[in-house]
């Protein structure tokens, strides 16, 4: 057991853990942020997706010892008030069904739009195919990503 300092959503957290513990369980059980979900444990489903230094990563497969003092963002840190264009689009298009995978979906989509503000359908396929939705909300996810992209590009051009 060792002490690790983590930078999550702009706040420092000191946790005591076995260094091999996946970041997922640290986020959920030690820090208490439960929006990040456990789905498969082997980086196949994307339910545990968080941002690590601006990249979308699967937190179930990254040991806590590897992320000390690096910038981690979870779904709770994406905005303070559900105001990220993706969150607004997700509500507008009524994307979630059970909702369990949606934190991961939104976190993957956020990195896609950051790197590619106007993604094509093919870009969305490439960026989002690591995230499973068993309820089958894919068509709405696609629509909502396009809608968020439009909103971001419009508000940029107004500036």
């Amino acid at each position, binding site marked *: 057991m060792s002490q690790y300092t983590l930078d999550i959503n702009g706040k420092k957290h000191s946790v005591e853990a*076995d260094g091999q513990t996946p970041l997922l369980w640290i986020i*959920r*059980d*030690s820090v208490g942020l439960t929006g990040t979900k456990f789905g498969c444990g082997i980086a196949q489903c994307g339910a545990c997706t968080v941002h690590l230094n601006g990249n979308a990563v699967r937190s179930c497969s990254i040991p806590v010892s590897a992320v000390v003092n690096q910038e981690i963002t979870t779904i709770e840190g994406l905005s303070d008030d559900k105001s990220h264009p993706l969150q607004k689009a*997700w*509500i507008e298009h009524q994307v979630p069904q059970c*909702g369990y995978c949606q*934190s991961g979906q939104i976190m993957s989509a956020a990195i896609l739009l950051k790197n590619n503000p106007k993604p094509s359908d093919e870009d969305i396929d*490439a960026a989002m195919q690591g995230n499973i939705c068993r309820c089958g909300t894919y068509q709405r996810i696609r629509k909502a990503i396009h809608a968020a992209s439009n909103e971001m590009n419009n508000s940029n051009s107004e500036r």
Partner: protein
Amino acid sequence: MERVNNNLDRRKFLKMSGITGAALAIGFNIPFSNGGNASIQNLNSDLPNGVTLNAFIIIEKTGKITLINPRPDMGQGSFQAVPALIAEELEVSLDQVEIKNSDGSKKYGSQLSGGSSSIRGSWEPLRKAGAAAKEMLIKAASSKWKIKESDCYALEGKIFDKTSKRSLSYGALVEEAAKLEVPENPKLKEPKDFKLLGKDGKRPDIPLKVDGEAVFGLDYKVPGMLYASIERSPVFNGRVAKYDDSKTKQVKGVIAVLKCERPMPHRKSESVAVIADNYFSAIQGRKALQVTWDDGEFGNVDSEGFFESLRNLAKSEGAVHHEKGEFEKTFNDAPKKLEFVYETPFLAHAPMEPENALAHVKKAECEIWAPVQGPDWLVDQVSKYLNIQPEKVKVNVTFLGGAFGRKAYYDYVLEAVHLSQKLNAPVKVIWSREDDTSLGPFRPGLISALKGGLDLSGNVVAFQHKVVAPSIQHQLYKSLQSGKSDGWAMEAIEEKDSPYKIPNVKYNFVLAETDIPIVWWRSVYASSNIFGHESFIDELAHASKKDPLKFRMEMLKDAPRHLNVLKILEEKSGWNQSLPSGKARGVAISRSFETICAHVVTVSKNDSGIKIEKVVSVMDCGMTVNPDNVKAQTEGNIIMGITAAIKDAITFKSGRAEQTNFHNYRVLRINETPEMEMHIVQNFEKPGGVGEPGLPPVAPALTNAIFNLTGKRIRKLPFNLNEV
């Protein structure tokens, strides 16, 4: 999946704490179940302080309005749709109310999210409850103002005076309203006046699901909670021969290792539980555990043997479920005969949230926090398991991260109950994805054996569908009489659901015994039966050299709602417009859970095989509560139906499931998702189910399209699009 409780006494209501002061609380004097008639009660009448009961509507003096949702939300939208029934008649918007889930107490009646029954079961009683409360509030206002009731109306949580436009809030009226008689037959609104029902409604749970706020079972914690990861026999009824936990006990955080059990309805199986103060330690401890299993007699079960036994059973007559005319004779005499067998596999549900439950057993009480589809069933099972009164079991229903039938099978909850009792502490059991994938219960694998005879003009004169399958009710409840047909297993193919006009028909059920744990899986037997049924209808159409859609329409000409669905689908799918070469369409229709759904699937050839281009869908589910959500459910059913057709089966070797996680039990992903287009028939028929009926016709519409494209007939699921 529907259960009717016939033994309900007219009991007085139990006290429910939490409300002080006067309140108007409306509920029922008997638990209502699907189709049941309960009289509506003012639950204040014989109780002090207006403290309630089984109320589905609680209006407090402060103006706070609480509506109870008795149908757990697993993604199907009951958290909006069920309270909307009350809100419509009560004249409140859903933003004005707090929605709470029921807790499993008998007093709330049926609380099952299953069998696509939530709206069908609540449509009448909950609207009546809302209407009754509204009438009482109007009466209270009219006496206060000394005007006629007909000069008052309700809107947005207030009663208005039609002439002067003065108003009083519901909160200001509850004290008076609560003293009034409850109207026995409150007047329900005309559908044309609906403000919420039949309109695209925004689900109140969705904002909670975009920033991690929604609490699922996995997220719930209580102080002092212990975590359990359980090693269960990979063979379903294997026994623990011995285990070595010396390495497990060296894992920091591990508190105990103990023998445990998995209580399934048909048997208990043995397991070893690793208990820790955090979940990762429990997982690590389980990895370090050495268990030696005694596989017992089922260590030799394998899929090939299973399906071979079904093919042998198909030669027997089994139980005749239904017969009309003279099938044998007309089939034997028919100038053209067709005879094929279709096979559908065992499947896991694989909800994104693996099974998990937190239980705290104290002396003769038990409290549970878990994602479950039917808290009332669970209360029954826990009270029997612990031998305590049902009133002493409380279930806190969380949001469910998917379920599809799996979370109406409570082995995972009873494991937590078992461990909590042994350890005298709150215990949370979390299944791994490997546990979820490989341990069942599964959709039963089955075969459909079909025979059909055509006359010289290509009319179907004889038709037989024989279902050879394990019986869910037989395994779970031992409720199947020997030699009888299983009504569930014949789902969706009987004439009431599939009213093809054929003079001589016969439906048989042949029971296949199995010890593999089985259970309902989204749309239950319909998902399997309709594959064989609608594939065979297509084969008959081709054999009679008729267009498959026109062939169906001709045979459904006396079934107006089916016919109407196909007519709309013909137009919306552009069925009569020719496609470029390399593309083809297929059609299938089914009725399940009182809803008719038909799909046209368009497929194309590409470099690697076949691509699913588009699915156009038409549904007649009667009146809708939230059409946008009906579409969402159908989109989900199409995705799940395609997954079931073209991805992985659960297969068995040496008594063990061979699939373990999403790498070998694959599901459809966004890059494989076809374009989907949904059309809902507008009518004022009684609502049908919407959570499942979109699934059954997916696979046959797809394979029928592939036949039209390639001439290859697929009679076994799943298949690989790149190997057709």
